[in-house]
């Protein structure tokens, strides 16, 4: 155990951990909301996120962020954020329409929906992985080679965005980490207020509590489920944008591990609980970083899952342990 290193770098380790944890938290929202409403784990949500990373990458490349600065760069980044949110939301809605609604209509067992989700996840990931072939069939390969080339490896927008660092009390901090943390927490607060106060949010909570009674009271369940997927998709889009801002590169398999971690974060905080997702994500991100510093980076995933097991042993419902329906979220 390397305590010297751990304590002398604690602030930096915490901040980078929080930044990645914030991304986990935003993805975790998608898992937690769908679970709250449908009692169903949407395993294809990781691919919703993955498509968002590509939307960000393509917009940044297409609009030439590498040569832009100042207002122009900010405009490009906003466009990239909107594109990521739009594509992720679109994929999430398509998922609901294709992989879930037909099953829910037929009152299929939950297990079937789970298998359907895993299948949809593979289809979405492999479609992105095969985009070079698909572009080839459409005879677009020559025109779009920058966007479809090297389909199976990291696609990168490195160098497009400057990442200045600054010092606070002797601790070197990346401005990107600060942006990621602030943006993610800001989005969570907005969403939390939205679900708590708006008509739609009340509908979502009512459906989560008791779908039949909610339907009797005039809440359209199909519409509510759709909106739940939409919100999850939008949040995954924001997460994807922030992820790209921080790491620059993505590939078609990037969703898998992040999805598992975000799901872990959701369970850690209490699945079905919005604030739980935030807390779970941040705790997971920081714990991973601290653990890596103390034991070694190769233990990252072990640390994450041991933490999950330990917390579930003590609190089987997660840290905050309530469901979406029980209204405080």
């Amino acid at each position: 155990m390397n305590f010297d290193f751990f304590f002398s770098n604690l602030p930096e380790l915490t901040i980078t951990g929080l930044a990645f944890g914030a991304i986990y938290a935003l993805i975790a929202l998608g898992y937690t909301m769908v679970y709250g409403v449908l009692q169903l784990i949407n395993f294809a949500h990781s691919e919703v996120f993955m498509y968002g990373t590509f939307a960000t990458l393509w917009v940044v490349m297409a609009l030439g962020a590498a040569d832009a600065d100042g207002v122009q760069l900010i405009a490009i980044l906003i466009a990239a954020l909107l594109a990521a949110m739009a594509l992720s939301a679109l994929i999430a809605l398509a998922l609901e329409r294709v992989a879930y609604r037909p099953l829910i209509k037929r009152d299929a067992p939950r297990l079937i929906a789970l298998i359907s989700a895993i299948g949809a996840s593979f289809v979405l990931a492999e479609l992105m992985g095969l985009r070079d072939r698909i572009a080839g069939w459409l005879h677009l390969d020559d025109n779009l080679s920058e966007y479809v080339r090297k389909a199976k490896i990291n696609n990168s927008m490195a160098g497009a965005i400057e990442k200045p660092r600054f010092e606070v009390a002797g601790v070197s901090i990346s401005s990107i980490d600060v942006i990621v943390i602030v943006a993610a927490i800001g989005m969570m607060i907005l969403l939390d207020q939205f679900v708590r106060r708006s008509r739609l949010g009340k509908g979502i909570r009512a459906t989560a509590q008791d779908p039949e009674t909610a339907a009797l009271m005039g809440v359209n369940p199909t519409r509510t489920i759709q909106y739940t997927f939409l919100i999850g998709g939008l949040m995954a889009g924001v997460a994807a944008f922030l992820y790209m801002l921080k790491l620059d590169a993505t590939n078609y398999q990037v969703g898998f591990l992040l999805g598992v971690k975000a799901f872990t974060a959701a369970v850690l905080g209490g699945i079905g609980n919005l604030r739980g997702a935030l807390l779970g994500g941040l705790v997971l991100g920081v714990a991973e970083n601290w653990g890596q510093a103390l034991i070694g980076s190769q233990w990252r995933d072990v640390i994450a899952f041991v933490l999950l097991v330990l917390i579930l042993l003590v609190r089987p419902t997660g840290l905050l342990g309530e469901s979406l329906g029980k209204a405080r979220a």
Partner: protein
Amino acid sequence: MTACGTTKEDGKGGGSDAACDLKLAFFGPETGDAAGLGKPIIQGAKLAVDQYNADADCKVELVKYDSQGSPDAAPGLARDVVGDESIIGVVGPAFSGESAAAGPIFADVGVPTITPSATNPTLADNGWDTFHRALGNDATQGPAAARYIKDTLKAASVFVIDDASEYGAGLAGIVEKDLGDAVKGTDTIQQKQTDFSATVTKVTSAKPDAVFFGGYYAEATLLIGQLRDGGWDGTFVVADGVKDPAFLDAKDAAEGTIITCPCIPDTDPAVAQFAKDYEAAFGEAPGTYAAESYDAANIFLDGIGDGIDNREDMLKFVNDYDEKGITKQLKFDDKGEPADVHVYAYTVKDGAIVPEGEIK
């Protein structure tokens, strides 16, 4: 038309006594995360086979077995290979991990393999008489990298990172041992990892002159980007697993990176003709290990040209082989290691990987 008879002198073309209906197998990644490293190897072997077929009565077929570079997929594929009696030799397996997994199966049945790229030294210590290597292993590459860091870079402090793979961890271990006291810290990452915050903090707090990374380009590209973002400005030293154009995706962060490789530069006069033919065939300059793969395939093709039509004779032929290839004198010791070994240094300059010369 070419005359009949053996054409052993130039190693090309099947004479009248050349064997028929034979196949060579490529074993390695055609798709997957490391597909970029597989492509030049496939094309190098393909060029050799195409040149042989151009004036041969009996064509040799090159069959591709796509392992995606994964040790998990390797044993199943290896069984497919040994099951096809017409496959007389294997160019590959391309990576060290899959070589370790597939090696026992090839050795059991007696299918001769010549890898143009797997560099883990312990592969030769398994007593597989079918194993051959057409390039220097990490027991020569590692010390060469260490010498470069000590003598050329004159780095007083080095941080060593590996990716826990058969190849990366093995190589990093050798470099770490050779550098001795200059190593200020080590860390291990995982393949497919994307966020290296903790590792970056470890490096920036140790402030080393150089970082050595043993692993493949997929992680190296992300790692150097994050190290530079983290404010570290020393020299990044990597090995052959990173020598792929995809590493240049790191853009400015990649500049100045030193890449060691037991692969001959395509500007070397010895491979000039090969480089020209390769470019004519595939429309690009030969990538990493294309020339080594070409040499490996040509050893088998020489044997086929001599009329060898079974694995047993081919194995004996390869074990006794002693001819000049384009990359080196091709001769294997009793463990399958090449007798003649060179390691070269490359550097990333103005967005291209350029040769710096041999590491003596």
